């Protein structure tokens, strides 16, 4: 039995954080969930009398909204290409920086991590110049090998790859640090044993590094996927979703519906669709990992 002093101590320690979580997490989530069944809009914002319960109407409208499907398609494109690319870039950088042949590791780690902590807007401005069709650095470099010029942000076929490149560059440093920690946990002896048994550097990577990193990779993949499904800042700053909605992501569409057109009920329904998608994606990854572990 818990006595009174103990109970008050528990309340004292847990109370503040529980209160904050309830106030700023559970309440908004529940409120948003409730709103997704209403036609909450700018009129309702002015006078709650205009608020009507519409049941599943927002969700059914969504499913027949071509822009929603465009946003879904773009977001999946981004997650499916950008996600693995980002994880691979992080792993490659981590393996390089973990090698005993590399000097000035601290400096490289800092350089690779800098984009992660730089603000989106500053990065976006710089990258807009890099991507500039006439004066951009990227087209200038491509010119040397006889390619281009490409209108990176103006061509609907190139806009998403351009966004992916930017996001991968900006984010790989974060996962790299986690991968480095994972790599340092692999006992050196395993590599020594494998090298005596005849494994080449590539075989050691394939048979020891990759399997030993599996838990880290799962963690990183899930975190990256969840983050990438919520793509927003980069297209918002760089392309506003264009050209021809080719970089319109789910969250950007949600933002436009909610805060440009004030269809808040509709945009909360969008948010919950995204939640369901992320939930499914995560459970697929856990399942794949479990199967591989036998």
């Amino acid at each position: 039995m818990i006595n009174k002093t103990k109970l008050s101590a528990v309340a004292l320690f847990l109370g503040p954080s529980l209160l904050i979580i309830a106030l700023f997490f559970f309440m908004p989530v529940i409120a948003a969930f409730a709103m997704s069944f209403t036609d909450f809009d700018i009129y309702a914002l002015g006078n709650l009398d205009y608020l009507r319960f519409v049941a599943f109407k927002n969700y059914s409208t969504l499913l027949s909204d071509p822009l929603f499907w465009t946003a879904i398609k773009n977001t999946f494109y981004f997650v499916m290409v950008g996600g693995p690319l980002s994880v691979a870039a992080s792993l490659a950088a981590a393996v390089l920086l973990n090698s005993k042949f590399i000097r000035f590791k601290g400096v490289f780690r800092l350089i690779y991590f800098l984009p992660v902590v730089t603000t989106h807007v500053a990065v976006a401005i710089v990258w807009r110049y890099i991507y500039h069709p006439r004066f951009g650095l990227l087209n200038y470099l491509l010119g040397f090998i006889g390619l281009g010029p490409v209108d990176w942000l103006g061509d609907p076929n190139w806009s998403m790859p351009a966004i992916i490149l930017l996001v991968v560059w900006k984010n790989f440093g974060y996962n790299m640090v986690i991968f480095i920690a994972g790599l340092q946990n692999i006992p050196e002896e395993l590599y020594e044993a494998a090298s005596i048994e005849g494994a080449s550097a590539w075989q050691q990577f394939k048979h020891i590094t990759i399997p030993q990193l599996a838990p880290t990779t799962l963690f990183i993949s899930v975190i990256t996927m969840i983050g990438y499904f919520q793509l927003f800042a980069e297209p918002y700053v760089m392309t506003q979703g264009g050209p021809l909605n080719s970089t319109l992501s789910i969250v950007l569409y949600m933002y436009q519906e909610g805060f440009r057109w004030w269809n808040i009920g509709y945009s909360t329904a969008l948010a919950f669709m995204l939640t369901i998608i992320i939930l499914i994606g995560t459970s697929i990854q856990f399942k794949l990992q479990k199967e591989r572990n036998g």
Partner: protein
Amino acid sequence: MSEVILKNVGKVYEGKNRAVQSVNLEINDKEFVLLVGPSGCGKSTTLRMVAGLEEITEGEIYIDGKLVNDIPPKDRDIAMVFQNYALYPHMTVFENMAFGLKLRKFPMEKINERVNEAAKILSIEHLLERKPKQLSGGQRQRVAVGRAIVRKPKVFLFDEPLSNLDAKLRVQMRTELARLHHQLETTVVYVTHDQTEAMTLGNRIVVMKDGIVQQVDSPLNLYNNPVNQFVAGFIGSPAMNFIEGKIVNDDGIKFTSEMNVLQIPLDEKVFSKYVNSKITLGIRPEHFSDEDNALNKIRITLDVVEQMGNEVFAHFAIDGKPIISRLKPKDTFRIGAEVEISLDKNHFYFFESETGSRIV
């Protein structure tokens, strides 16, 4: 034929820290050689240079007549068992043992045959489908040995393989390794810091200290004829007792301990040149007796008495220095008891105190 030859082998880290100094060693085919010494003596580094895991900074190593200095580990045809087993955690026991063969593109039937054969020798056939974390320490050790033997390499290298096992299992695995060596008839180089392991397993023992080989000899020769005080103190359990003193010429050449408790007359021919030099007397615990009527009898008071059943370890002091003796058990041996004890003069060892080298 697979002998291992080390010629003037040395290891210097980053141009300054010396770990190993000019090791010369010829390990014959099918020989079981032990590298033994306290931690930091360079024994593991030497083994790792043979394995190819450490760069050889000085000298040459030959395996089977071939210079291997610049040959990577995988092409040296060796197998190694590590202290922490180094089993691949994500593979089953079977996969662990088959890994090297798979990399060498052995056909599947051959792999099955070799793994099953090794599993049978080590009695781990029932564990093949398990992962390393489902095994006990002793079982993991067996798998590590199994992984080494499936490839039938020219040389086996063992790096303190029994250190992580409990005492009972260690004794058991020690016997099994001895039997296995007899069965496989392969060259073995084995590193340990445990002198009992060294004495019981090896054909020859290499005693190392501070990166320098002190003595290479058979276990019995090391025990009977240590070249210096370090080897004398390292081999044998409990360790040899050392009593500091000097040589005096007082009615003949004599050794006297620091506080004159011991006075031992000595051969003039050998010791006359050491008059007034500091000398250390070494005597093993088993060379004390309470029965002999020999000379060199002294009266001592027992400090601690450890009854082992078949023998007794009696602790006392000579010149205020702790001494341990190994005697036949008696009821009268109790803490505080006064006992007449004699030292067997046929088993005295004398060392120069400064250099530690033995006076013969």
